[in-house]
């Protein structure tokens, strides 16, 4: 009770802050493109050029318009109609089907027509044009090489979109498919990350780019991106919604709690996805605790709303898993990866043609690599199936990671980490506005963010370097003299060995979440919650000069196998039951062919069983 009232207080506070943000940062962030120098310049330059050569341009535009294939024009008109009518089914068809089909056919290597060009087709509908540009730039980023104008303009367009959603008079009435809502935010963060990486490569910038970057101000700044995400979260009151739903509040109560914005699926889903994007941004910036903290209300389960959009489901688990790795909670990371990898391998059968299939597969491969790392550092018996696939994919590194000399193993950890880690970014731009500082920056050879995180990770791996060797020796004994055990280790005296034993003990006790589901009524059901769990089947204690060792053996696990197969059988049974009865064509014919078949299979089964038992 005190908890919820506290929370309300907290949020009441937040509401004020929200307003403050609107006044201060939000306006700077959102307004900068319109008011501050750079875009004005660009805009006025464009205007001048336009005035000077308006005739010629008009003719060029007409020619360009004429060159748009009719099927594309028709598609845009339909798409626009679907958006205007809020017809989710048709929007989805255009968004997932038509757009991608036409991209393959006409725009595999070039941009879609500029929004200005197709504007007459959609009655200059400004909202549709913003959405169209969203798709336009996403296509540029994914298929072509975005130049600096694309990068600045895509930011501008995102701001316009979010501005429209957040700062119109009351909630907007548009409806968009969940998949698209996720893609909008996902792409927003991707472009932010892509810009940060591109920006940090000072060497490759030409004069014009340096000038534009020096004036860039808030374009793609961390504050502006966080502002968008937090504004969506607060506008939609998504956290309050999740808490209220969990507490079993009635529909009327929830409606009241979430307000006019939060009632709309559009805002609710945007708020929900914003939490997940926040997780991602914090990971990219290296703040793993905060990343998990913002997720504290989001439930990770097979039924959670995030599973409704597969790309979101996969992405969430990837970043949560990585956070756990960074917190050295390897058992939790393993659990997260196993759960999602199992899901992906089951899904693979149905989704091979989804346009995001490739992306999901790539993320999955990286998660197998991360899983392999966790498995090497903290072996578990969670899932043989996943272990086997990981071995197929990264077998070479896996065998090197298990080498007894840690210095031999390190390069393998390094390879997998760099391959699979998130694309870390620097929070701040190089000092473009200050030529002297920029020259110094250029000289200094700053370490790339990924390399910094790698170094931190490897320091931890080195720290537990002797663990596998010690463990393998201990497995051979039930008790052994400490000095004798030290003799087995290369250049280690008894004191070294005792210290390494303490490390071993520490490594076999990690913080982990005991159960996946939050415990009933617990205050902090969040992802950061955890208890000390034993992660090793080997245990020991040092008694003066003697080391005593015991091993925990794990009984065979049947339940998972039975559950999977029972579920499978149920599905098969359902299918059979749902399928129409066979038409009685020629009476007697089907039964005549069926029985020999089934009896044949049962009899062969019998032979097999008989052999097995014999």
């Amino acid at each position, binding site marked *: 009770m005190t908890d919820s009232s506290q929370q309300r207080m907290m949020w009441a506070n937040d509401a004020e802050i929200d307003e403050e943000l609107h006044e201060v940062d939000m306006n700077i962030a959102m307004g900068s493109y319109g008011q501050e120098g750079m875009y004005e310049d660009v805009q006025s330059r464009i205007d001048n050029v336009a005035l000077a050569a308006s005739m010629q341009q008009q003719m060029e535009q007409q020619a360009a318009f004429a060159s748009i294939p009719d099927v594309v024009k028709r598609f845009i008109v339909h798409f626009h109609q679907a958006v205007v009518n809020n017809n989710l089914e048709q929007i989805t068809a255009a968004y997932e089907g038509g757009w991608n089909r036409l991209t393959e056919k006409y725009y595999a290597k070039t941009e879609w027509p500029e929004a200005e060009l197709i504007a007459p087709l959609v009655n200059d509908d400004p909202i549709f044009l913003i959405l169209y540009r969203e798709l336009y730039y996403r296509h540029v980023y994914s298929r072509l090489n975005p130049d600096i104008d694309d990068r600045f303009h895509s930011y501008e367009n995102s701001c316009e979109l979010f501005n429209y959603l957040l700062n119109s008079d009351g909630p907007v009435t548009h409806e968009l498919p969940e998949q698209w809502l996720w893609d909008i935010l996902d792409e927003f963060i991707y472009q932010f990350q892509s810009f940060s990486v591109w920006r940090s490569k000072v060497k490759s910038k030409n004069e014009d780019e340096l000038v534009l970057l020096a004036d860039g101000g808030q374009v793609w700044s961390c504050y502006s991106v966080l502002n968008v995400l937090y504004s969506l979260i607060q506008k939609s009151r998504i956290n309050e919604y999740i808490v209220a739903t969990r507490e079993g509040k009635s529909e009327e109560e929830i409606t009241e709690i979430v307000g006019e914005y939060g009632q709309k699926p559009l805002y609710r889903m945007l708020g929900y996805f914003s939490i997940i994007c926040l997780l991602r941004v914090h990971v990219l910036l290296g703040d793993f605790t905060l990343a998990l903290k913002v997720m504290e209300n989001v439930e990770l389960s097979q039924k959670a709303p995030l599973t409704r959009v597969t790309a979101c489901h996969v992405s969430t688990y990837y970043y949560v898993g990585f956070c756990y790795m960074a917190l050295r909670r390897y058992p939790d990371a393993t659990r997260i990866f196993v759960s999602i990898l199992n899901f992906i391998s089951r899904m693979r059968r149905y989704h091979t043609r989804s346009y995001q299939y490739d992306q999901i597969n790539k993320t999955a491969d990286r998660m197998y690599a991360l899983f392999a790392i966790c498995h090497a550092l903290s072996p578990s018996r969670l899932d043989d199936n996943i272990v086997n696939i990981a071995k197929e994919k990264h077998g070479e590194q896996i065998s090197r990671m298990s080498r007894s000399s840690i210095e031999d193993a390190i390069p393998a950890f390094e390879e997998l980490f760099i391959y699979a880690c998130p694309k870390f970014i620097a929070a701040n731009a190089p000092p473009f506005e200050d030529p002297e500082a920029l020259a110094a920056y250029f000289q200094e050879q700053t370490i790339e963010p990924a390399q910094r995180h790698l170094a931190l990770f490897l320091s931890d791996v080195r720290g537990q370097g002797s663990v596998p060797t010690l463990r393998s020796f201990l497995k051979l004994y039930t008790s052994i003299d400490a000095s004798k055990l030290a003799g087995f280790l290369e250049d280690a005296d008894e004191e070294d060995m005792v210290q390494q034993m303490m490390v071993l003990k520490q490594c076999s006790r990690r913080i982990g979440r005991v159960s996946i589901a939050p415990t009933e009524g617990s205050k902090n059901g969040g992802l950061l*919650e955890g208890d000390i769990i034993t992660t090793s089947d080997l245990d020991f204690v040092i008694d003066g000069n003697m080391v005593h060792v015991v091993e925990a053996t794990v009984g065979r696990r049947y339940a998972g196998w039975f559950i999977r197969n029972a579920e499978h059988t149920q599905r098969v049974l359902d299918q059979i039951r749902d399928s129409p009865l066979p038409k009685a064509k020629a009476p007697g014919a089907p039964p005549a062919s069926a029985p020999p078949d089934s009896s044949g299979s049962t009899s062969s089964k019998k032979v097999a069983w008989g052999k097995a038992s014999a």
Partner: protein
Amino acid sequence: MAATAEWETPSTRPDEIENLVSGVDRYNPSNVSILEDYLYHQTRSNEYDCFANLAILKLYQFNPQLYNPDVVVNVLVKALTAIPFPDFNLCFALLGERPTLNNQDEPDPVPTLLPLLTTLHSHLLQCRYPKFWALFKSSECESLRDNYTVECAGFEDSIREVVIKSVRPAFKKISVERLSTYLDLPAAEVATYVEKLDWKVEGQDVIIPPNQENHIEATVVRENVQFSQLSKIIGHAAKTSAIATA
């Protein structure tokens, strides 16, 4: 109570800080002094709040002009006492883009202290306690001691607690001599120190009473089926029986 509860929300954290670190106010640069004051409060009164300190580093990350090297060192010193939690590395992860300080009169102490702190951290993480103390007491660490850890109330005792945390689960009996090198206390003082923990000295050895972790037992781990794993099967059965009765 989960083991992480105290780490996530220390009971000593004032409401003001709680509100600050849990909301968007944590990004407001004008709040940095509140958090910095709280850090100094922690060092004076031997409290620790990893989350609040990370919030300082986050503000430095976004607003390089706020960067205060003394604060950074203090945060890291505090994080050393949190081992085996990974706080030190978590703080370190936010430190990447250290700006070169324009103020030349006062040289930034961080570049010289960072490698030392990192080495101290890795000694602790690898349970090399004698090496930790040797380095910490050496002339190399003089400026760290004189300017920082001396201000940090109970720093050495907090490190001793780190030692105790890893000795307790690993030993039933440990020689006084060995423990004295771990704790950096003369053998004579070890007895009084361990008394507080209810450990006993018998001759040359310290006896550590049985606890959950130093009391080892061979076990067979049985499979544990969660009810939620069966929900699909049961749900299906209920549904089909409903259909059957209908």
